[in-house]
């Protein structure tokens, strides 16, 4: 057989492997690829927005297209880039950190990914089918009800699909952490990234239903003639805002808590000290989650909820700054007196602390309800949430990439390019967003297509756009780094960073069963304990025995195709009832897959003891 033919066969085999996989590591990688793709898409949209705002009264894109751009930028970045990228990391790393061989429900895990991905694709199909959603990523009623065309319908169905996927993964992570920890891995010995995964999953479990309900109501209003948000027919459009923010504020913590977890892994590793105030960190995480549910109305201070409601929510909002502050100090004390190594991962972590603190500070400013009348819907808010989301979440994602890349792909990302990407992105980030605080205070409203000349806004906007190009450059360097590393990168040993937690005790990348024998955990930072008190290797907690693994399945993908088809049906049945056929056919396919899954027994397979023995460590 010719070489090209074998290669082609191998490629299709790999493809089939990924389409049917239920392995948490491969699902994690799929999440990273999917999320990465949407991140680039959202970045492109951001660049277009900034080019439009480079000078006064620019007409680079039309007003309508501009609305579509800002809507899709926000929606894509929150739902299709940041959340899935974090979920990808959690998927890959968390089971390794607790010494598990997979997540609790591998099939569900794959289904969660495919639902997220199909939701993203559905949403972006709107670009080619008459226009993207244009009512803002918050889709406030009544604008979202009156928005003509199918754009907002795509928003509703796309988010419904991807939201279902996220909810599923959240439940999956919860069960995994509660029930699948290795022997000796008590709750208070779990690494902080696992803890934040846990708390994030709790938030997902409680917050996403509010979004689901809101989206259903919007769907009924737009597609089936109900009037939940239509004031003229006795509805109430403020209810959308409540439902959206009951989801929306916890969602920002769904994003930031795993980011906190990432930094709580990186800082101790590269300071060669255990995390300062471990139990305070765990407690603060819970406190943030708890308070995070009582503050949603700080997004609605100017709606007219009344002074009493506004004050209550303002106080609750400011209270969140306390546990957040605890965390900041703990990170600083972790580094205090440590022998610090500064590499790319650490650079992102170091840059995070001041950047995020600025975002937290403007957050408290916004949380003062009286002052918020001035700030609200201005560029000041835009600056605030980009400082926390880019300076917090995106920095964390990039740090995590550098830190865990060797574990996931077996090669170490190039340091030089890592540093170049860091410095350009970091400088670009502050250029872009710092000046926006002042643009906002000078009265520049957010979401406006153009601004006028000689109102003191020209220079600021120009600087902001220049910064966006710096960030683009940084991102491109990072992409080049990925390609370079894949081809020429240095091969990674099991523990390239002299790290502390369980994922570094197994090969890079790990075997598909993760742990040949489950490790015995003797305390917090198990690997570090073995390095300092033992022989540097984990003691197995069980004799070598056969391992039970789940079978792959194509059903999650087919099920998702069913829901995807049905969503198209729902969107277009308002034009022509024949589209109901797509609804029924799609649902039949999806439910058919569920029936097959329920009735057909699949006991998985066993890796025999001999096979395990044959494999070298």
């Amino acid at each position, binding site marked *: 057989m010719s070489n090209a033919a074998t290669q082609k066969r191998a490629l299709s085999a790999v493809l089939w492997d990924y389409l049917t996989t239920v392995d948490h590591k491969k699902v994690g990688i799929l999440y990273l690829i999917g999320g990465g793709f949407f991140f680039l898409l959202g970045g492109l949209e951001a660049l277009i927005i900034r080019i439009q705002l480079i000078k006064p009264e620019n007409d680079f894109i039309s007003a309508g297209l501009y609305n579509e751009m800002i809507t899709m930028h926000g929606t894509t970045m929150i739902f299709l880039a940041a959340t899935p990228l974090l979920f990808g990391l959690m998927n890959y790393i968390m089971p390794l950190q607790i010494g598990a061989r997979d997540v609790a429900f591998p099939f569900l895990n794959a289904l969660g990914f495919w639902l997220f991905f199909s939701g993203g694709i559905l949403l972006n199909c709107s670009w080619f089918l008459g226009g993207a959603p244009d009512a803002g990523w918050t889709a406030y009623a009544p604008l979202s009800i009156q928005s003509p065309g199918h754009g907002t319908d795509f928003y509703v169905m796309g988010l419904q699909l991807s939201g279902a996927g996220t909810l599923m993964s959240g439940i999956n992570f*919860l069960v995994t952490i*509660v029930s699948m920890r290795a022997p000796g891995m008590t709750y208070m010995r779990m690494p902080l990234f696992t803890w934040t995964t846990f708390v994030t999953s709790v938030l997902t479990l*409680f917050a996403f239903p509010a979004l689901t309900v809101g989206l259903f109501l919007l769907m009924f209003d737009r597609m089936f003639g109900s009037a939940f948000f239509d004031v003229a027919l006795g509805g109430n459009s403020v209810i959308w805002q409540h439902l959206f923010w009951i989801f929306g504020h916890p969602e920002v913590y769904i994003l930031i808590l795993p980011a906190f977890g990432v930094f709580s892994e990186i800082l101790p590793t590269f300071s060669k000290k255990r995390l300062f105030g471990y139990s305070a960190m765990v407690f603060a995480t819970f406190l943030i989650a708890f308070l995070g*549910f*009582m503050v949603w109305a700080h997004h609605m201070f100017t709606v007219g909820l009344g002074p009493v409601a506004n004050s209550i929510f303002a106080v609750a909002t400011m209270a969140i700054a306390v546990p957040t502050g605890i965390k900041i100090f703990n990170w600083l004390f972790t580094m205090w007196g440590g022998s610090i190594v500064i590499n790319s991962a650490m650079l992102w972590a170091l840059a995070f602390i001041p950047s995020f603190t600025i975002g937290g500070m403007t957050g408290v400013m916004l949380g003062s309800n009286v002052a918020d009348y001035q700030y609200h819907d201005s560029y000041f808010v835009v600056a605030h949430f980009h400082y926390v989301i880019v300076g917090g979440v995106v920095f964390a994602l990039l740090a995590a990439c550098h830190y865990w890349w060797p574990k996931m792909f077996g090669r170490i990302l190039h340091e030089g390019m890592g540093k170049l990407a860091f410095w350009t992105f970091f400088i670009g980030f502050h250029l872009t967003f710092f000046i926006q605080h002042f643009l906002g205070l000078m009265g520049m409203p957010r979401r406006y297509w153009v601004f006028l000349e000689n109102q003191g806004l020209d220079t600021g906007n120009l600087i902001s756009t220049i910064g966006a190009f710096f960030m683009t450059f940084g991102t491109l360097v990072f992409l080049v780094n990925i390609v370079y590393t894949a081809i020429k990168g240095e091969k990674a040993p099991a523990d390239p960073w002299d790290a502390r937690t369980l994922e570094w005790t197994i090969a890079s990348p790990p075997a598909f069963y993760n742990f040949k024998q489950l490790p015995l955990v003797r305390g917090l930072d198990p690997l570090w304990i073995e390095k300092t008190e033992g022989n540097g290797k984990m003691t197995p907690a069980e004799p070598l025995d056969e391992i039970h693994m789940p079978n792959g399945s194509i059903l999650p993908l087919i099920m998702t195709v069913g829901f995807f088809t049905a969503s198209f049906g729902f969107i277009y049945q308002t034009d022509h009832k024949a589209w109901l056929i797509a609804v029924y056919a799609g649902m039949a396919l999806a439910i058919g897959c569920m029936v097959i899954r329920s009735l057909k027994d699949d006991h998985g397979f066993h890796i025999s003891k001999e096979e395990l023995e044959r494999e070298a460590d």
Partner: protein
Amino acid sequence: MTENTSTNKINSFQKEKNKDEMRKQIITFALMIFFTMIAFFAVGMGISSMFVIPLILILAIVQVGFQFYYFMHMKDKGHEFPALLIFGGIWVTFLVGVTFVTIIWW
């Protein structure tokens, strides 16, 4: 439970515990039926709704408690985390309810 797999090896302590558990289950079950009957009769006898509605609500809350603690085993050891989550969920729902009632619909 692993110790239940071979029936003839259950020790007397376990047996006693199981019997105890069974008794509790039956008592709660009987109580729940009884509460339901009270609710039905209260409505059926046409007592003023000022009294009946709060009564039914209280009975409902007690029944939910029974459901969680006895039938869903929240009273047992090792169920602290589910309990925490359930109470968290109740708290969130309660907050949302209070907010909606006070600042939207009042």
